[in-house]
């Protein structure tokens, strides 16, 4: 039997495939039978937060910042309560990261403010002496992409039944409604910022990337 396999490339390939697929079938597949269950109180992201999350992803913040607090005292002391699976139920994709060049951000909303982020993103080393993080001044100039953010929220609602518009959950509605809500949400953040260009742009109906990013980071709790 073994030697037959060695001279029949087709069946050999089938054999190899079965062997390597088997692990995935047993370990990975069953867990998709039950979709990730959110914790009580875990809510999907608002449109503005999704826009901020996309800024986070576009700049691969996850290359240096983890979003996973492991159950060790040294980590809970530093970053807060350890992470639970249900908290990530609406994270598509997950953003755990693999290298903590900078600190963990899973609960950064608990201990950093809009004001802190504004100063820090402009010049990290001025806020944290010795910081090696790049400056992100360009986020104060580029506009957040609410359309793509809405498209993402709409897609997860339609395809994956993410509970937007359900009682006690964020409202999504039509694009115009979502845009209005995002504008209102952004207003609170802009009010806490100093940068005049960002404020002026906001008055003209333009939300900058930095505003969306801060909305996302403040929501990480």
């Amino acid at each position, binding site marked *: 039997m073994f030697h037959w396999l060695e001279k029949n490339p087709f069946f050999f390939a089938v054999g190899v495939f079965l062997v390597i697929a088997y692990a995935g079938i047993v370990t990975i597949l069953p867990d998709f039978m039950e979709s990730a269950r959110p914790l009580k109180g875990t809510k999907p992201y608002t449109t503005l937060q999704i826009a901020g999350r996309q800024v986070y992803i576009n700049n691969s913040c996850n290359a240096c910042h983890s979003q996973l607090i492991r159950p060790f005292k040294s980590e809970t002391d530093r970053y807060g309560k350890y992470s639970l699976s249900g908290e990530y139920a609406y994270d*598509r*994709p997950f953003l755990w990261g693999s290298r903590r060049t900078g600190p963990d951000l899973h609960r950064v909303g608990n201990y950093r403010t809009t004001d802190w982020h504004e100063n820090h993103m402009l010049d990290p080393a001025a806020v944290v002496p010795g*910081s*090696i993080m790049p400056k992100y001044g360009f986020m104060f100039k580029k506009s957040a992409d609410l359309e793509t953010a809405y498209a993402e929220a709409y897609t997860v609602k339609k395809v994956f039944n993410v509970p937007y518009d359900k009682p006690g959950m964020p409202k999504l509605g039509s694009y115009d409604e979502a845009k209005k809500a995002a504008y209102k949400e952004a207003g609170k953040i802009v009010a806490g910022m100093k940068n005049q260009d960002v404020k002026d742009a906001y008055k003209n109906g333009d939300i900058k990337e930095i505003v969306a990013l801060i909305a996302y980071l403040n929501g990480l709790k």
Partner: protein
Amino acid sequence: MQSSNAINYDYTIAKCFTVATIVLGIVGMLVGVIIAFQLAFPELSNLAGEYGTFGRLRPLHTDAVAFGFTASGIFATWYYVGQRVLKVSMAESKFLMFIGRLHFWIYILTVAAVVVSLLMGITTSKEYAEFEWPIDIAIVVLWVLWGVSIFGLIGIRRERVLYISVWYYIATFLGVAMLYLFNNMEVPTYFIAGMGKWYHSVSMYAGSNDAMVQWWYGHNAVAFVFTVPIIAMIYYFLPKESGQPIFSYKLSLLSFWGLMFVYLWAGGHHLLYSTVPDWVQTMGSIFSIILILPSWGSAINMLLTMKGEWGQLKENPLVKFYVLASTFYMLSTLEGPIQAIKSVNALAHFTDWIPGHVHDGTLGWVGFMIIGAIFHMAPRMFRREIYSKKLVEAQFWLQTTGIVMYFTSMWIAGITQGMMWRATDQYGNLAYSFIDTVEVLHPYWTLRAVGGLFFLIGVFMWAYNIYKTATSSRAIEKEPQYASPMA
């Protein structure tokens, strides 16, 4: 026997991919050196606005070396080794030549799209699977083309039994196909919502599930891009260059099945102490340790192939590349399982020890093997001697020094930072703020960047040597049987 002299092996496609290997190797490692210096000297991050930040460049580095340098190295060696061990020439089939060319050009276009999109920040954020759906489709197409070319060539072979290297190439093809498809399941948002960026997509999986699929992929991408095809290379190039048959062909078959059985179960070790089920984590740990056996089976088999022939190490620098590659393979396949032990992982995870481990494998094992393979192929593809033996020697020692600097500094950096994160003072409070643990790494990061620079300089020496070999070295009349001729 004489009649087959009319046809020769056709290396057109192999040559194309050799050029791609060299160019993408330079690009990927140059970006790697830049981001390594950015960590040590952060002002370098601010030179090119959003396009020069560490975050934008890091995926470009990993993807350019994994799917640029390594993948084209795999393709180049396949289009060389495949013909030879199956004893059939590409020139015998017009169809396969066409598929080969198509494969190459679609690959080049895809690479160009990847470089542009990653610089623009178009990414799905999943490590080694950052490409958005249009590029994913292109990758599927070129992968299928490679499959057609593998099985097409096998279909017209003369040799009845497949050589062990071909086994490994087939496994690479199947493994990457399966992993890539499942990890990149995503829904394009534009087609559902009718607005936003057309190339944007959202992952099919959420949260912990997404993490499980990603690291099942991430871990096994390492298996099927950095391990399996590289073993395919060493099983051909080391015996051929040294003129020694494999120490035990049976052992090579056993290690093959061992590797296939065990590797896929070990992905959980990337998620220790995370929120995925406990049994997945424990199983990941256990299988990582079992994985030492098949890995060392191959490595020891390679080293024993040189039994009684160690003198060649003095005379032939290419053998040095192969032997050091096997040694680094042993080192990193021992280091990996150690890091997968839960208590060690608690310290090592999220630190520089992990990139340190990856680079033992990629620089020492993958890099040396591909460099050595192309040195071996060059005189046969171009019918000329290798341009300079001295340069090969110098490159070998420079790069070896670079790798040693790289991994020693990263070991120290990783363990230092891991210990500092958990250090407490006499009252049980954390002893260091996060930034303390960053500042302390500066000397190690500098050393690492210099080590990487040494390796990059070596790659430039290699590129120059191959270029000179192809264009102006002394011609050889007859193809050398074993050791590659060099001036």
